[in-house]
């Protein structure tokens, strides 16, 4: 935003002000002449006060009636509650071993206070230990067989292709063709795939208010008594899970493996022009007609900064600097506009010009898809704090993996998002004096994923940096989280329960394993004749001769007759094949290091119970510490090599044997619980608020050691 001031009036400010005041206050007529300026100010203020007044009258008049109604319906919601309020801070991926180590090093004084006064324990995670799975279990209190989330991706049995497991977004069914336009009629259909009922719905039914911020797999938002901002799995404006854009004058035909596109910058007469790719036009007859927002870059003399013009927005950036969130309106015609926001990062001005643009997030102040409940909650936050990241995976790990961003630029982005989240949390704490306040911070997960390489002496992804020069990024991360906890502790009293939890821990990801390659080399997966490798998503797999395959992070599937379209495994063979694969994979050794690459293979029937087990993988593969499914294997690619070094910045992971990566549990009050698990959180909270536990819950509530009310 520009900030312009009147200059060169040629009169001293004091004289000007005296004259102006004289003009206004001496003759009565002048007030009438103040005209539209005064009118604007008065009308705008009057509008605010008038609306506030109407609201206040409405709220005050109806409050007793609503309270009476609530009382009659639910009696005293907090009558049996042990605490007035529960605050749950979710630190995605906070690792208990690291937390313990840093506490012992004196880095985390506030977590030490919680440990000493309340509880510190490992928190058992889910099978598999993946965020969407674990957070779904956290909120529903059930195992994945009852909430239907087994990974980020699920597979379509009709074509072996993946789809997002958490939500399905479809355009309107009906279109009317007028000339070159195909006009959609009806709403975009968004279907949540996660089943089960989040525990804040049970609280809401009992009249207990909840503020829920960025808990994963809460998109699309569901109706309940409280406010909720959706987290992980919210798409970007393109509908993807995050597609960054590198605008560059460098000619290159290379494509990014995942998560980004390269867009050319045209340089002419000192002005650089490029565009931000957006969603497909909803009006175009032909699918894949991309909408774009053009922008201009005018490098300043000296080539250390540049002025940008994006639509009506104008701003300046130095090299190595991020912009604020900039509105990006993708106009399709006939008044159809998709509203997004993005940030620009000026990478380079000389000799070439390169600009990184974040994925285009859904504009929280003007959401084209619902990202909160009520819809106005995201708008409220945007008005209060300004625009903020809404994309589920807002920290652009792909851009760092692809060397589009460097370490510092990634951290600046991640901590920028984190600060926004902190502001939201403290606002929710202020607004939720009674009830539940829960907020999940993703920074812990993303930073550990990307900077684990600096925690080890000989990580393949950091071999070019001497260990003595490894920056203490993860230590800083834990200290930052500890300071946040300290500030939260200042805001709560003894009648508030504070839980700090994580969905899983973390381990090194130094070696990749292509399980599809292993299946291929061991005769379970067959390629088309003449092929030694396969492209993405099983491009060259011969399904008529394939008995097992893997996609996603931990799931192993059998190609079962009658289930998969080209299934060949008879129902009678299924159990034997599962046992055979379990026996062969369990304890599989990486020949290069002699280390066990897979420490556990779990048959789904033994770990899942519930109505949605038919959608689960047949086996869950638990990789050993230091190992994980290779990037290729995740995408259904079959390579020649089974094991290889992981040299990407994404150097830490948790998608391994769940027994190796429990999460953390800290609490302000002492709990007596043997081997607490993330599935226990929901029943524990319901019990602490005095509610009966639904019979279908898998978790068991923890007992509070002592608490006087």
């Amino acid at each position, binding site marked *: 935003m*520009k900030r312009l001031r009147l200059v060169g009036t040629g009169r001293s400010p004091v004289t000007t002000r005296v004259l102006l005041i004289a003009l206004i206050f001496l003759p009565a007529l002048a007030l009438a*002449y103040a005209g539209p300026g005064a009118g604007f100010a008065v009308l705008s203020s009057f509008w605010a006060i008038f609306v*506030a007044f109407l609201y206040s009258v409405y709220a005050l008049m109806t409050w007793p009636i609503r309270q009476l109604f609530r009382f009659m319906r639910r009696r005293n919601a907090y009558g049996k509650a042990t605490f007035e309020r529960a605050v749950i801070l979710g630190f995605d991926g906070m690792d208990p071993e690291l937390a313990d180590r840093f506490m012992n090093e004196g880095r985390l004084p506030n977590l030490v206070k919680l440990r000493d006064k309340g509880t510190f324990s490992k928190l058992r995670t889910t099978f598999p230990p993946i965020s969407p799975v674990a957070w779904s279990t956290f909120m529903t209190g059930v195992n994945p067989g009852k909430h239907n989330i087994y990974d980020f991706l699920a597979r379509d049995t009709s074509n072996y292709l993946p789809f997002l497991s958490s939500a399905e977004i479809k355009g309107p069914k009906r279109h009317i063709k007028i000339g070159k336009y195909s006009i959609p009629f009806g709403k975009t259909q968004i279907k949540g795939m996660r089943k089960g009922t989040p525990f804040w719905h049970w609280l809401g039914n009992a009249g207990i208010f909840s503020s829920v911020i960025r808990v994963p797999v809460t998109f699309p938002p569901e109706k309940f008594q409280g406010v909720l901002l959706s987290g992980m799995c919210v798409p970007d404006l393109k509908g993807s899970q995050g597609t960054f854009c590198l605008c560059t004058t460098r000619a290159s035909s290379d494509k990014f493996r995942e998560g980004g596109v390269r867009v050319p910058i045209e340089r002419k007469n000192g002005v650089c022009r490029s565009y931000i790719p957006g969603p497909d036009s909803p009006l175009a007859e032909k699918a894949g007609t991309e909408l774009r927002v053009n922008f201009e870059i005018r490098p300043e003399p000296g080539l250390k900064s540049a002025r940008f013009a994006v639509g009506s927005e104008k701003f300046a950036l130095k090299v190595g600097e991020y912009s604020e969130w900039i509105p990006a309106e993708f106009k399709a015609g006939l008044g159809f506009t998709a509203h997004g926001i993005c940030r620009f990062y000026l990478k380079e001005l000389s000799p070439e010009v390169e600009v990184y643009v974040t994925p285009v997030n859904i504009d929280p102040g003007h959401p084209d898809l619902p990202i909160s409940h009520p819809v106005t909650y995201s708008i409220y936050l945007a008005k209060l704090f300004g625009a903020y990241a809404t994309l589920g995976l807002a920290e652009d790990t792909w851009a760092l993996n692809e060397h589009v961003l460097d370490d510092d630029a990634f951290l600046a982005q991640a901590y920028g998002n984190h600060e926004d989240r902190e502001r939201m949390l403290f606002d929710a704490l202020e607004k939720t004096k009674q009830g539940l306040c829960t907020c999940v911070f993703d920074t812990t997960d993303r930073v550990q994923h990307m900077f684990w390489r600096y925690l080890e002496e000989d990580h393949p992804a950091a071999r070019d940096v001497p260990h003595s020069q490894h920056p203490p990024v993860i230590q800083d991360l834990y200290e930052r989280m500890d300071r946040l906890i300290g500030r939260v502790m200042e805001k709560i009293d003894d009648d508030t329960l504070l839980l700090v939890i994580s969905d899983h821990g973390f381990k090194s990801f130094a070696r990749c394993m292509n399980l599809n390659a292993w299946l291929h080399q061991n005769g379970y997966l067959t390629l088309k004749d003449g092929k030694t490798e396969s492209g993405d998503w099983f491009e060259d797999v011969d399904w008529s001769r394939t008995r097992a395959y893997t996609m996603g992070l931990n799931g192993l599937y059998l190609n079962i007759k009658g289930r998969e379209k080209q299934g060949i495994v008879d129902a009678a063979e299924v159990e034997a094949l599962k046992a055979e694969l379990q026996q062969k994979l369990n304890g599989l050794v990486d020949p290069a290091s002699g280390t066990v690459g897979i420490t556990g293979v779990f048959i789904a029937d033994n770990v899942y119970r519930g109505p949605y087990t038919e959608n689960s993988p047949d086996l869950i593969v638990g990789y050993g510490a230091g190992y994980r499914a290779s990037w290729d294997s995740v995408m259904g690619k079959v390579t020649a090599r089974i094991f290889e070094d992981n040299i990407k910045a994404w150097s830490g992971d948790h998608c391994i044997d769940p027994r190796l990566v429990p999460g953390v549990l800290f609490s302000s009050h002492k709990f007596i619980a043997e081997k607490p698990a993330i599935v226990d959180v929901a029943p524990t909270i319901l019990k602490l608020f005095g509610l009966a536990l639904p019979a279908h819950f898998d978790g068991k509530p923890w007992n509070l050691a002592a608490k006087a009310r």
Partner: protein
Amino acid sequence: MAIAGHAAAIAAFRFFLLTSPLAIVVVVSLVVGLLMVVLFGYTSDQKAIGVAKDELKAYLLAVRLYRDQIPVVMGSYGKILRGTGRYLKLAFKPLLYVIIPIILLMVQIDRYLGQTPIPVNAPFLITVHLSDQYVSSLTADALDSVTLDLPPEITMTAPALHISAESEIVWRLAGSKEGKYEVKVAAAGQSVAKSVCVGSDLARISTVRLRGHFWERMFSSAEPALPETSPIESVAINYPDRNIEIAGYGVNWIWLFFILSMVAGFIFKELLGIQI
């Protein structure tokens, strides 16, 4: 033929724009609305105004979102009031800047649109106010010494009315022919002139001629100041107020201008992306 008709239509439209008070108010309102918005944009802290407005909206939404939590609702009301104050403070400074040119412009327009000329043969009053100092320095009936010198087209229709308590003399006059005339008023051997406009066309009108009173002169008079040595403080004529007909109602141009310029301003602010 068609070209001639077209030219005639354009000429008629121009004439309408120049002579119709309604057309003038509409055009001026549009121009002023645009100028106000542009000036406001250049003289205000747009970012701060945007933030203040957004916060106000947020507090309003908070009332709705947390409606069952009375402390939050009451706190939000307090913030709405404080936010409104902050917004007004931010809007006041640019308002000061934009008021100067607008006031000067409006004063000039008011000369034309504020009053109508005296209709032909219609009676009107001319009021001469003498300084109290002059009146008290003379003997009784000092007001008798003040005389009026009229042009042939202006006639006196009633004897002068002396209001001694107010040091004023009022004459009732009438104009027999359209035109601009000068009426001369003499007192203590000094004569001053006051313009009189008779007719029905749009004309620049000065309702009063004043001695001193700088600010009042700036807003009310379109004539030079009376000499400082003159015993006459003011000479005023009661021109009829002009009303512009809108849907059968007579409206003062100021109100019409106020509404139209605001509407124009709201439209232009959207088009120009300026926060108000």
